[in-house]
């Protein structure tokens, strides 16, 4: 386990370095693109461009430029958005709780409902319930999340807003949990549901396939042979084994969503998280913000992946490679 952990940590460092180099090359060394002009936002003054050239050492060698970028990003943390003239990193940190609220809530919903759907389909295999659940799951993974969000808004904010079922839905936006917990909850209910639809469908399909595969294992037959009830076999033996894949997938997806994957949901529901910040800087072409959210997001996801791998190896000794 220790060697595995060390090797995984070394690979993590390589990946982090490679990602930062890749982002650097994309933003600072794409042929035919002037990075200073791009960083400066719309209609920059000649002075701004000169400042940027100096800040990032654009007239110096590539490795020095890379070092300067990393210094601004992680050590002095003083990157400035040339669009809004604010510091980028504090802005990102203050947007993080919104993204975390969105992803945590959606994760709770998708875990509960995907287990119910997946187990339900596997238990009722051979009846009409299984194909119905699986078609619903397939529809769930085929709907673009931003479009679903628009349809949800259309129904709950406009067309059926006066209907008693949706009359409680507050206008789009975000209220911090510490300020008004009820409002926080009410504004997030539909974003949570919308974001979780894709994952419910996907996890239910994976879980059902895993359950059916595990069903054929010898130890399940043994468990039945020694007279355990069907329910106990399912909960203590079949489901438990199948959850290993589930847990590792969950870790990866959770990391991806917090690291920037919840972008589309935040945009369509106007939630001022990291994703909406990235989107607003995309439309304003505010490159320092985009660059920072991309690097911070990618680093977070990579760290989460490494953590999941370690956890997975700890749970299931078979995957520890020699």
């Amino acid at each position, binding site marked *: 386990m220790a060697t595995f952990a060390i090797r995984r940590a070394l690979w993590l460092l390589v990946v982090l370095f490679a990602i930062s180099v890749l982002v650097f090359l994309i933003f600072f060394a794409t042929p035919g693109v002037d990075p200073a002009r791009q960083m400066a936002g719309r209609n920059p003054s000649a002075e701004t461009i000169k400042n940027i050239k100096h800040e990032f050492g654009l007239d110096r060698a590539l490795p020095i430029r890379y070092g300067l970028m990393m210094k601004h990003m992680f050590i002095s943390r003083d990157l400035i958005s040339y669009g809004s003239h604010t510091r980028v990193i504090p802005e990102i940190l203050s947007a993080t709780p919104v993204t975390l609220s969105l992803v945590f809530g959606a994760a709770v919903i998708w875990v509960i409902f995907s287990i119910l759907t997946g187990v339900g389909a596997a238990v009722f295999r051979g009846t009409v319930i299984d194909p119905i659940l699986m078609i619903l799951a397939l529809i769930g993974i085929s709907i673009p999340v931003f479009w679903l969000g*628009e349809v949800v808004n*259309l129904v709950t904010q406009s067309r059926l807003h006066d209907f008693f079922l949706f009359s409680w839905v507050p206008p789009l936006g975000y209220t911090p949990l510490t300020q008004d917990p009820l409002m926080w909850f009410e504004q997030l209910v539909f974003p949570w549901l919308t974001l979780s639809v894709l994952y419910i469908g996907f996890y239910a399909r994976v879980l059902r396939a895993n359950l059916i595969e595990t069903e054929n294992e010898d130890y399940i037959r043994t468990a039945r042979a020694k007279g355990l009830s069907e329910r106990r076999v399912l909960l203590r033996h079949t489901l438990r084994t199948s959850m290993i894949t589930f847990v590792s997938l969950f870790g990866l997806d959770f990391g991806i969503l917090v*690291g920037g994957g919840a972008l589309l949901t935040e945009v*369509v529901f106007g939630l001022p998280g990291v994703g909406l910040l990235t989107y607003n800087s*995309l439309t304003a072409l505010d490159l320092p913000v985009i660059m920072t959210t*991309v690097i911070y997001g990618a680093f977070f*996801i990579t760290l989460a992946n490494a953590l999941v791998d370690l956890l997975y190896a700890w749970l299931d000794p078979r995957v520890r490679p020699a």
Partner: protein
Amino acid sequence: MAVFEPEAEGIVLDAEETGGDIAGRSPWALAGRRLVRNKLALAALALFVLIVAVSFAAPVYSKHVANTDPFESNISGTVTIDGKTEPVLQQGGGKLGLGETPIGPTWHSHYLLGADNQGRDVAARVLYGGRASLEIGLGSALLASLVAVVFGLVAGFFGGVTDTGISRLMDLIWAFPVYLLAISLATVLLTAPNGLNLGIFNVSASSLWIPLVIIGVIYVPYVFRPIRGQVLSLRQREFVEAAIAQGASNFRLIFREILPNVASTVIVLLPLMIATTILTESALSYLSIGVQAPKASWGTIIEDGQALLYTRPTVAIAPGVMIVLTVLALNVLGDGLRDALDPRSKVRVK
């Protein structure tokens, strides 16, 4: 005389098939037979073909049925329905009675699904948008598969340093979050003032090639991983050893012995890849970093429709319905192909 044992031949049987049923048939014929029996998958295939055909007929529709140019704004135009002439952009109509609202669905050949806020025919735009979305979806899925197959064959066949190098590169792309990679590439490429200048090529910022290549590159590892794994195990099989013993060249081994055996994996993955690339394209276009004006795709039309969501919801809903139908058809088809070619479903994609 030896009894025919399908399992020993490496042939996997479907639950309802017995040894006698399949004797003398090739694996492809068996797969074809299973697919034809799967009515749901056939219906999905038909639906997908229909959507492709209709989308590629977009110029015909807009010229001969709708009689408009869906890329030309028509702000002061009028449309005649049942003898009544109405302006395309109507005064008021919003809750406050301010501004202009485009005409809603007429359910006639002109402005079948209404107009967007520049007075352009939404139905014709959805068809043109579908053409762009499908071109990018199909193109990037094919690009990703092609690159992945080449890399997978080379890495799995030669092993050693070659394998380590290619696999680590793929791991890196895999580790880089999809949307973040696409966002960084797209922002830089799309903001370049004169487009991307690559020596002899000059790619304009509105070219469909930019999103196509970006999406294609991102998804290479998703196909590479299963292919490489399969090539690694095929490399050890007796028929490959036999071919080596007969003095076959590497070229022959790779293309005549190994490639036909990974073909079924590629075929199973392809519809699922197209579904994924179409969803990715629509998301990038919705974020305004995919297809660029003047071109349109389903994603850009949904973005256009967002401002009109509460007054003219068809603008955003119509392209979304097309995406859902297309992706659903591809997913059902992919499941059907997997069941047909690989009943034990060894191939899985995320």
